[in-house]
């Protein structure tokens, strides 16, 4: 199962600098957002969209072709 991943702000530093936060990942079938966070060694306190829709449920199973965006969850003004 192949998904497109986009990481923002400091989270993208989990990927090589030349990737600029974007990568294509091959995950096992049935992988969840929780699995993805563990794979990337990311904290659970993040904001995630799947195919540009907010997804707060980390048990959500991903499908091939999904676009997953992950943002830091912070306040600020």
């Amino acid at each position: 199962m192949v998904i497109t991943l986009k990481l923002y702000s400091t989270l993208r530093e989990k990927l090589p600098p030349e990737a600029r936060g974007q990568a294509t990942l091959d995950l096992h079938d049935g992988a969840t957002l929780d699995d993805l966070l563990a794979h990337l060694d990311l904290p659970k306190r993040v904001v995630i969209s799947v195919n540009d829709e907010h997804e707060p449920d980390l048990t959500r199973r991903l499908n091939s072709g999904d676009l997953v965006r992950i943002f830091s969850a912070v306040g600020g003004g």
Partner: protein
Amino acid sequence: MPHGYTGNILHVDLTHQTTTVETPDEAFYRKYMGGSALAMFYLLRDMPAGADPLGPDNVLVLALSVLTGAPLSGQSRMTAAAKSPLTGAIGDSQSGGFWPAELKFAGFDAIVVKGAAKEPVYLWVKDGAVEFRPAAHLWGRITGDAEDAIKAELGDDKIEVLQVGPAGENQVRFAAIMNMSNRANGRTGLGAVMGSKNLKAIAVRGTSKVEVADKQAVSDLARWGAQNLPQSNITGLSKYGTAETTGANQTIGSLPTYNYNSGVFAEWEAIDGTTMYDTILKGAEDGKQDRLGRDTCYACTVRCKRVVEIQEGPYKVDARYGGPEYETTSTFGNYAGINDLAAIAKANELCNQYGMDTISCGATISWAYEAYNAGKLSKGDTGLDLTWGNAESMVKLTEMIAKREGFGDILAEGSARAAEELGRGLGDYLITVKGQELPAHMPQVKKSLAVIYATNPFGADHQSSEHDPAVEADFETFKDRLAMIGVNKQLPKRSLDAEKIDFAVKTQRLYSALDSLNLCQFVFGPAWQLYGPDQTVETVRAITGWDVTIDEIQELGERRLNMLRAFNAREGLDRKEDKLPAKLFKKALKGGASDGFKLDEDEFEAALDTYYEQSGWDVETGNPSRPTLERLGLGWVADQLKM
């Protein structure tokens, strides 16, 4: 010098060009501590009720705290306060930079400015000495030019300059007070107050140092902050700026778009903080952003301030005027459907050159865009095509407002006055509270903000309380810190019951205390900030030597809030002014995670009742009660109000 403060309050009479120095005792400093609370003491004591905000009776206070100038991140900040020409209520605004610490080194904790000069003047404050100097040659000059001229004529490049730009001189009702030509006391129009007094600038230079009570403890706190910053929740803000939150706000449907009609903007990624870092932050072309594109305040290791440089294309931007934060990318961006980051950076540069609040300026422009797109304003009215997304017109309008040219002269009054002047039902498109435009965090999504925006004494403000996610989805992460101020329970998403109000009130008190301690709200706070409530207490103890507790800090915040509300009560304001824009109740948001969201009138009014009750205020009027004022040592304020 006592620990942390100088003991000197400088009073400036512009009408008679005289100065006096007041030396309050330690009990005074312990009670008010500085910043906004200290400023309120002088406004309530020295300003007559009913003063014209743009007349000589208005009093402008620039106040530091007992912590300003100590060698620690997040302390070089100051409060500007006066009666607001935008709202007619109390005006209150915070800023960082190097000017605050420099004023402390020059020997003063605050400057209280009264009267008005006949001709433009500026003040030169150096090591306890104060001089009035003519400023006619500086009048009309943009901030960078005026700053250079003052430094040149005083012959010292290390001088820090606080000033108004041409917008303040022109009394644009949301004019800002600027320092470093890129730091703003932006909100509530206090630049217009300074301009109305013919006070162009205050230049400061000092060579004294702040004596702290416990050097080792201050050093330990500083070291802890520097060591923990990389793993902290603010490391993204420091590197990518507050606009790094654009994508998260888009995802949860809290990115105000098309003048607050939607919580999502399809082209958000074009104006996001990560994009800014990669494209227009100074040094981006050769990967040197972290060295060249991030500025700081005195003694702060966080270095969150944006420095943007654009040398090519239609919108060239000079790095000395800084760069846009999230509020600015929103108000000049998604508010009007604009996806051009260079144009947004240009509008930000213009606001810093002319001295204007980017939030009210951008939101006033987006109000005009909605009216135009609804067919209620025409090109004949505006002289410009205000179709959603038109970046060129947005940039032109920004300059026209500062110069009060054409349609810009109407918008320079703020959107509420402009709607009243133009009629035609344009009030339906307003997004104002007490006449001040809403910031870019949506109360339809983060519902405690509905109550805070409505009741905040100086108009809607996003930095007066912790936002709902901290007690909702993120509670587990922050529960230890929240418990320190008595917030102990996770709450359901989008609730607005008594428990949510309790969270809002308690975090509001801490934020209010931070604005009196003049501490940065990214560095200190109740949840995601670098330092928590316990370390806020440790900081006050280490610098002043006072045995403060978190309860005393919370009471300081409560005292300041009561003084702000009491000022408004004295001006005749009450619960009737604690209203949100009608469209937030009538029009459901469109698109994204907040599709269909709107506020409920009954729930909101019940929440207001609860808020006043929990604050110890009169539920009918929303004003402070005598018992509450007396409990806070403010019986003299109750006497003023003839309670």
